[in-house]
């Protein structure tokens, strides 16, 4: 292979023992990640995280999950978990990383060598930033009902429709989108996976302000937007299969105990500051939650061990997402209750002799139960595919 991807790795990571590997990662994060960006109360924008991620790109650390030959760190499952754990532990804010998390794996599995050469190097250098164009105003949980049309015109597809809730589309240069290419086929069978350059006529990105006052997701209007037919990933009308192959990864990641563990530290800080730490009623609630998190960690470790052994995750992993996100919500709700009148003050607030952002965890906890397949949808899947209960 003459074409080179990314920068060479300084070490053979997988040859290191876990402790040494963790140490190296930790030193890099702790030394170089900007302190003021740790545990950000919201998704950071590219202009805020840019310096850090360009540094990661220069080090060749931007795609820890990709294989070496494509410019990734080539980490084994266990090393990858350590990398993610350390990033979470240090509270490193994500950029719009759908390029490394999703596009890369999709192209490696379904893309042509041509597509990989065309797109992967720019993901590695952060020259291109990708967003995920799946949801539409009329297609949320029922994603297969999406209506954005892609019509073949000569060597191009011409795309018209609207995407919504597109995270950080205002930072993105490209979108991978699910589009309808056969309006007459059964819902799932007329969908294609297309790569779209957003820097062109007909693309309008409009940020949506959320109830916390932040602008993290967007509407993206596509009006006769063109993309070459060579940007079709996988076969025509097989986009649903391509998109579905990414789901397992998300569910274990969102099932990590780190967020609720962080929530517990906020809860403790608020309770101590308000003199409620020794209140028996509070303690009862606190330790019930602490055990909820401890048992989440017990279950999570079971699933990560499966990944490390290189085995396939079953559908049952969905329950981790439910338990992790709802436990985090219960913790965040108790933070609000414990904070009393301080819950009515925005941002970092002085409580007793501590400073905490009371509302950050409350808002942060609201959306993980909605995205990535809402918790109700996860329950449907578990009931029918794991518990083998009949469909209606």
């Amino acid at each position, binding site marked *: 292979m003459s074409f080179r991807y990314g920068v060479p790795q300084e070490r053979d990571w997988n040859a290191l023992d876990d402790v040494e590997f963790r140490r190296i990662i930790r030193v890099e994060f702790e030394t170089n990640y900007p302190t003021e960006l740790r545990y950000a109360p919201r998704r950071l924008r590219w202009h805020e995280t840019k310096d850090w991620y360009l540094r990661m790109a220069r080090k060749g650390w931007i795609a820890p999950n990709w294989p070496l030959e494509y410019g990734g760190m080539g980490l084994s499952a266990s090393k990858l978990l350590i990398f993610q754990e350390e990033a979470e532990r240090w509270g490193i804010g994500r950029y719009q990383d759908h390029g490394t998390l999703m596009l890369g794996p999709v192209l490696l599995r379904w893309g042509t060598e041509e597509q990989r050469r065309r797109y992967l190097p720019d993901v590695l250098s952060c020259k291109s930033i990708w967003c995920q164009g799946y949801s539409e105003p009329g297609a949320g949980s029922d994603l297969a009902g999406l209506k954005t049309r892609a019509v073949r015109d000569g060597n191009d597809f011409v795309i018209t429709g609207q995407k919504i809730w597109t995270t950080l589309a205002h930072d993105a240069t490209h979108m991978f989108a699910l589009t309808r290419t056969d309006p007459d086929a059964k819902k799932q069978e007329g969908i294609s996976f297309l790569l779209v350059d957003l820097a062109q006529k007909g693309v309008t990105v409009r940020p949506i302000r959320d109830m916390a006052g932040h602008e993290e997701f967007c509407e993206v209007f596509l009006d006769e937007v063109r993309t070459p037919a060579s940007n079709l990933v996988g076969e025509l009308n097989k986009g649903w299969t391509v998109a579905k192959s990414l789901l397992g990864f998300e569910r274990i990641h969102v099932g990590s105990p780190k967020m609720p563990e962080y929530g517990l530290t906020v809860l403790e800080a608020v309770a101590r500051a308000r003199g409620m730490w020794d209140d028996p009623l509070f*303690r*009862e609630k*606190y*330790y*019930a939650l*602490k*055990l909820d998190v*401890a*048992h*989440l960690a*017990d*279950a999570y*470790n*079971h*699933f990560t*061990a*499966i990944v490390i052994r290189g085995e396939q*995750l*079953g*559908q*049952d992993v969905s*329950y981790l997402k*439910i*338990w992790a996100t709802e436990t985090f919500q219960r913790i965040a709700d108790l933070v609000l209750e414990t904070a009393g009148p301080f819950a009515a003050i925005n941002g970092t607030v002085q409580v007793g002799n501590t400073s905490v952002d009371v509302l950050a965890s409350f808002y942060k906890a609201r959306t993980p139960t909605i995205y990535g397949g809402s918790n*109700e949808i996860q*329950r*449907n899947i*578990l*009931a*029918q595919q*794991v*518990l*083998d*209960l*009949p*469909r*209606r």
Partner: protein
Amino acid sequence: MTAHSIPENETIALLRNSAAGFARFDSRRIRDWRGRSPGFDRVVWQQMAGQGWLSILVPEADGGLGLGIEAAAAVAEQLGRACYPEPFVMAGLLVPGLLAASTNQALKRALLPAALSGDAIFSLAWQPADGSLKPATSAMRASRRNGSIVLSGECRFIVPAQADHYLVLAHTADGPLLVCVDADRIRPGLIEESGPDGFSSAWLRLSDLVAPEAAILMSGVGVTDTVEAALDQAIIVQSAEICGLMQRALELTLDYMRTRQQFGVAIGSFQALQHRAVDLFIQNELARHAKAAAVRAVEHGAQGKALSLVASSAKSRAAHAGLLISTQAIQLHGAIGFTDEYDLGLYVNRMIRLAASLGNAAEHRRRFGDLSEGA
């Protein structure tokens, strides 16, 4: 249910399989022993001994198998699935472990073989009558008098109520001791208290009962720690038994949801019920993993406070999940679920006992908190 199983080594897998083959759910047998002393079948007990299960925690040097807690938990889980009334955890693990730890070699040689063969049943009397979980506060007093010891006070929640010998934890001016007293000496002070599963525990009240000093199994400051560690291990294995019970109760419920028809469809197709079933499944999984984590911690040498922490972690989840699944199982069955005739009730009633004994969910959450605080 198609949840991923927790990996285990070959010995454990063999033991689990043979326990699953041996311990079959037998509704008639369970019903037969309800309310009938001693509440379980001594023939089955001896068969269990024959399987080696009563020897699991006893070191090989003492004639045991020295297999460790993972093996004990694997067996207990299968006994739970079969809703066995035999008091495996209390009389089959806790007591042999304590007998093996006895510093009185002569007594140990005399008693341990009978305990391991199942020929003699032993009960441990350790818990204060107020139900506290701290053996140190036991309200049984002992004093030494002319080569004998004299016991006065009370213990409660003793399981099984009817045994051949009782190990009594008592406190003297120079610290605790554990003494073995035969059933005929104990019986006059014993009141049986029957429980929801038709099985009984005992309330023991003694005043000036005289026992020879030769009956002391161990004495001194270390005794409380030894008993507490044995209890913590028992709590973890009991959590495994509860896991077996709840898993079976959940399976019964899911089966029922697939077959019971109302409004022309299986009730399991109603989304409200599907989502509730998933929440029960999640609790079941959490209980399994909390228990497995506790077992692993013990296998890796957790002692003292670390042992108590994992025991409370496992039991707090098991008791909570077990009762939740039990009560929801009744609801999801409708009226049939509340009948004596339907087997679910056997599981629910046994669950109530196990959830309540050796500390319930709230007590273990509190203990977990207190132990964490002290850190």
